């Protein structure tokens, strides 16, 4: 576990959040695993580090639930890569998860925010 004391250390994902974030990253359009990694690191302001050891199993789980599908395609720069795409179910799940997460964050914020 990264320690909170050290601001230089990057954050790890809370249990189960990685899958929601993957869904979010695919909301803009199909992407490959490396693209997902980069998106998440960039969007988090380099706070998150995406470990391949967590990313791939998470992708597999999403595939199993049929929230995403995968297809080999050729990338704009001419490389073959496996592209992941949100399914309608996945989209619904993302909406639900987002609102749940926001309620959670607000609640956490209210508790943790300094009084006054």
């Amino acid at each position, binding site marked *: 576990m990264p320690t909170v004391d050290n601001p230089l250390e990057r954050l790890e994902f809370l249990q189960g959040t990685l899958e929601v974030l993957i869904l979010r990253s695919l909301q803009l359009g199909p992407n*490959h*695993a*490396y693209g997902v990694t980069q998106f998440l690191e960039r969007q988090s302001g380099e706070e998150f580090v995406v*470990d*391949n*050891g967590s990313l*791939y*199993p998470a*992708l*597999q*789980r999403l*595939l*199993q*639930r*049929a929230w995403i599908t995968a297809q080999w395609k050729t990338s704009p*720069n001419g*490389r*073959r*890569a*496996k592209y992941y795409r949100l399914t309608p179910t996945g989209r619904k799940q993302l909406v639900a998860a987002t609102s749940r997460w926001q309620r959670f964050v607000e609640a956490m914020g209210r508790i943790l925010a300094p009084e006054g």
Partner: protein
Amino acid sequence: MRAWWSKLRCMLTGRRALAEDLDAEIASQLEFEIQENLARGMPPEEARAAARRHAGNLTLIQERAREAWSFPAFETTPQDVRYGLRGIRRSPAFAAVVILTLALGIGATTAIFSVVNTVLLRPLPYPSAERLVYMGESDPKAEGIGVTWVNYQHWRKENHSFEEMAGFRTAHLSLTGRGEALFTRAGLVTSGFFGLVGAKPLLGRVFGPSEDRPGAAPTLVLGYQFWVSKLGADPRVLGATLALDGKSYEVLGVLPPGLHYFSQAIDFYLPMSQFQGEIVDRTRHGSMRLLARLKPGVTLNSALKDLDLIMHRLAETDPGPESNHRAYGQFLAESVTGDIRPTLLILLCAVGLVLTIACANVASLVLARSTARVREMAIRAAIGAGRRRLIRQMLTENLLLAALGGLTGLLLAQWGVRALIGMGPREIPRLAETTFDWRVLLFACAITAATGLFTGFAPVWTAGKLDLVSALKDSSRSATGSKGGQASRSVLVVAEIALTLVLSFAAALLIRSLIAAQTANPGFSPERVLALELVLPSASYRSPAAIAGFYGRLKQDLRGLPGVTAVGAVGCPPSAGDCRDWFYSILDRPAPQPGEVPISLFNTADAEYFGALGIPLREGRAFAASDRPNALLVAIVNETFARKWWPKESAVGGRIKFGGPYREGPIYEIVGVVGNVSQLGLDTEPMPEVYLPFSQSPAEAMVVMMRAAGDPASLAPAVRHRVAEIDRNLPIESLRPLAQNMAATLAQRRFSTLLLALFAGLAMTLAAVGIYGLLNYWVRVREDEIAIRLALGAPRPVIFRWAGWQALRLSLAGAAIGMLAGWWASRWLESLVFGVSAHSIPIMAVAAAAVIGIAVLAAAIPVWRATQVVAVDRLHHG
């Protein structure tokens, strides 16, 4: 659910495709990263390495991703088992030692447990056996006295707590009219008995209420064994008659095999009513006890209170000397196993300790091996094994070893049970029926799993944190894990020594007790004495004169046999147990309260008995020819009796009131005092005993003792011949050397002592192996250190002291803990210890010295090796 389906689909469509797909995907991701790094201006080599580093452990990623598609528990287990088997094959010596150690522990424990299971746990073979109660009467001094016929009738009719109640006792009868006279054992029962023990007739019928009525025609029910062996299994026997003690009984039915209610084999069952007649005296005790079945939901306590109400009522309407008698009851299962229960439980505890020591030994071995395997584990971790997976694999390996040990143990146990049945004393009920049922198998599985988990978790606890880098860089023996491992192994060895001492102390106490019992002065000399046990059938020997006449002539004849130096007769021979006890009081002393009337053993002896057995006469005289039936009634008492009432002065001339002040009974004048004999067995304290002269109170059942000049057994044929000469129809109950009878009383003690000594020996061996292994390892790890010390000028004695101190420290620590634990635990042995205190300091000292000695001996080789390290060799090549 959905995920589960897609997993299943994937399983069917094939794994290989999935793996290849993942490979390609990861490779493509690597490519992206490399391209990006190149674009940032990195040189190609560095770009590749950086991407590789960033990607992480590829194998682990693959494994994890694939795991998402699998059912991990199902799939990795066979793999772990395969790895485990491979590991076992790779180090056969280690595996053999572990399997053998566990097999010994599990085997011994399972064997003892299967005996406990059969004797104590398995329900008795009767319907609703858990509600069966064995009953007698009790008074303030004694429990389980026989129930009188009158009381039984009242209990049976007036109680509200029992479904059924039946009386039973045994009797010895002689069967005549069918060739040679036969000595037979009969069960005297009331009609409810057969329903209570669930016996349905094989032929004919069993007793009904009509057989319980006094004056009913004499009938009997044959036992299966007797019917087959003595009557040729003839079905026409129904309706035929058998002559027992001169009275004809009609055969009503035949029972099926397998009824073993009485402790001895029963030839046939007779109605109790045939032996009771019309009795109205509420204090006429026979040896009848009751068997009863509680109504469902009624507790034994409330049932006894119910009967006590009846007794209170009877005390008012029919008062007498026994108005203070109450009902006594004990669950049948407890009364059957009462004596042996503590012994068996102690043995089970002891063997459990042995198993614990075996476990500690194996755990210690596994620890040593796991420290040696740190490198292997580190490599596995480096190529992608998760920590959890490693632990699971180590556990699987140990469970596998335990399972193999358990299987071997079961085989050992089977053999052990046969040995136990072979050497076990006959007094242990149902011992011969010991088999492996599901409970034993379940028990064996449970202890096997427990040992596997215990020994498997030992390395996980201590070497749980694997420091990859240092483990890979350093040589295995200086890896950080070994320090923790060494400490926990020391703890294990200390525990082993402590437990071994507990067992050794217990074994030493029992051995000392056995020696004390064997060498206990029985009060007479049993060597070269032949004991002839006879019971004269009352039908042919009706009068005291007839009985006296028979024994008089027999003794005369036996005295004439060549090789016989003395002949005497006694009613209850030494070690036969409590043949008869009764109340008494001493005249000219204050009368005791009704509940305080003392009890003494009462025995019958002829004038020559004391001389023939060498029982010393302390005061007064032995019985004499002048003690005729019409003369003054006399008695001889033993020393315990005499000292109890006449601690200083002579007991001769004192007068005993038989039955105490509140019961009818004759008065006897004490004419002599003899030494104590071990009447109840060699390992018992003497009780007060009164001998009455055979000439004044002749008894049908006597044991004639013949002292021989040579081997007493060789006299037997001549003795049989003489008995048949006098009465052709008289069966001989037993004829064997007295020493054999005496030794038989110690059979159970010998059995438990032998087993406990065996366990202690096993524990010592295991502990020795344990301390040897630990020190061996300790020295091996320190060979470099020793070499450096030697090179720096340390003399070898210093090395010797250093290594020796390690061994001694562990032994002393273990011994100290073991002494405390043994001292505390020996309280459970009180009931088995004889002739020595359960808290005996000398015995503890001997046991501790033995255990420390064994430990030091086991440590000697490694310590010696430590002093033999050649500094130059070690430092050059090490």
